[in-house]
């Protein structure tokens, strides 16, 4: 079923609540931290956690972050019940295989999505509905992903592109439109997401992208088959061994001179790390802290990459300004080249 009016009204309430949390509650929390930390020298997120442990503002901040997301999925008006037939026309279906779900992935219900993305057949639709309000203003209407495609476009003109962990095609579709003469392969573990991605590409009449079920650690493609490998919001969902394997696999898949571009998160500030790691716990994303703490430049070089560039990424104009007024993810682009 599509969302009924009551579900839409409830979900609208949640988006409003999330926006209030992103602006008013976030501002109050930062002010509380400013006052508590005045005159103190704090160098680690655990020191910030100790300082904020008895902050009622932080209690409510945490509760709302957890429960707005919980209510989005679960309960009477949760998007989990959204279901409708999703099938790309013949010739545009994704290539599905029996890919085992890795233990690091099945350990938790990521994003508080009960059953995860490899569970129910409607998991792709549910994820798409959820992603609209992950960071209202940035993650809805595909804006972030179109910006990412433009960013990649400034790095070169690519012909053979692999998108790792493509989900329901939010990045693969803008990439396919940006690189209209390229062939884009997009892989994911989730069959329901791939079904939705393929159906949306067919509906958008985008013919140069195809979707396949594969594990990004061992994709099965030939050595040097691509001149660009990308991902968005995938690295932080991997544990450290899986991330290392994915970097080696990307290196193997790239032709000499090929480019790797990952869009993910990076934060180096005790307060923002505290916020980021708290988000990880509240949103059931257990590997976020270890991936943030990993020396990714060193890991990329260790996997054979050179010309590593790690730069903050603006999901909307001005978002990386220090005085940006609302909560946001610490979007970061990781670019490297295979010599």
């Amino acid at each position, binding site marked *: 079923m599509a969302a009924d009016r009551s579900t839409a009204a409830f979900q609208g309430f949640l988006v409003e609540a999330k926006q209030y949390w992103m602006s008013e509650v976030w501002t109050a929390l930062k002010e509380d931290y400013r006052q508590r930390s005045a005159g103190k020298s704090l160098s680690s997120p655990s020191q910030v956690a100790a300082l904020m442990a008895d902050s009622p503002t932080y209690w409510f901040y*945490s509760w709302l972050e957890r429960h707005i997301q919980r209510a989005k*999925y679960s309960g*009477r*008006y949760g998007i989990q019940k959204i279901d409708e037939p999703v099938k790309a026309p013949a010739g545009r279906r994704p290539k599905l295989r029996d890919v085992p779900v890795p233990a690091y992935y099945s350990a938790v219900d990521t994003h508080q999505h009960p059953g995860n993305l490899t569970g129910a057949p409607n998991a792709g639709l549910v994820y798409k509905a959820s992603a609209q309000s992950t960071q209202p203003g940035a993650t809805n209407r595909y804006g972030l992903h179109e910006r990412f495609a433009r960013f990649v476009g400034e790095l070169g003109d690519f012909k053979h592109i692999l998108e790792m962990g493509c989900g329901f095609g939010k990045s693969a579709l803008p990439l396919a439109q940006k690189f209209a003469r390229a062939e884009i392969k997009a892989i994911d573990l989730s069959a329901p997401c791939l079904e939705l991605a393929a159906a949306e590409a067919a509906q958008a009449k985008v013919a140069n992208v195809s979707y396949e079920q594969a594990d990004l650690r061992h994709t099965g493609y030939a050595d040097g088959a691509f001149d660009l490998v990308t991902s968005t919001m995938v690295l932080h969902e991997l544990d450290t061994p899986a991330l290392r394997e994915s970097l080696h696999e990307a290196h193997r898949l790239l032709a000499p001179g090929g480019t790797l571009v990952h869009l993910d998160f990076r934060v180096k500030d005790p307060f923002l790390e505290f*916020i980021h790691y708290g988000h990880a*716990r509240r949103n059931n994303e257990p590997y976020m*802290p270890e991936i943030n703490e990993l020396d990714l430049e060193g890991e990329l070089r260790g996997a054979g990459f050179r010309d590593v560039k790690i730069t903050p990424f603006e999901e909307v104009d001005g978002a990386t300004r220090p005085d940006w007024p609302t909560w946001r993810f610490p979007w970061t682009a990781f670019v490297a080249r295979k010599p």
Partner: protein
Amino acid sequence: MKDLQLEQTYFPDPAADRIMGVVFNLAAEVQVLRDRVQVLEHLLEQKGVVARGAIDGFRGSEEAERAMAQERREYVRHLLEPVLGYAASRNDVEAGRGG
């Protein structure tokens, strides 16, 4: 109650987390109702169907009353579910750092 984990808590008294859940659901439900009432008001006004005061005097058919009772039951289940304190999804295996 098989395989249910306890929900994370953020307040010094974990009962406050559950009470907050009830309040939040109630608030959201009020918005759902406001939305529907506003739609009805607009429709009724557009079509000139209902005179002022007709709602207070309303008595539905047996079937309508049964359906409203079912609605009420589902509403209460939803409203009070946070009191149970169970997570709706599987939690992080570790307590996490920083937060």
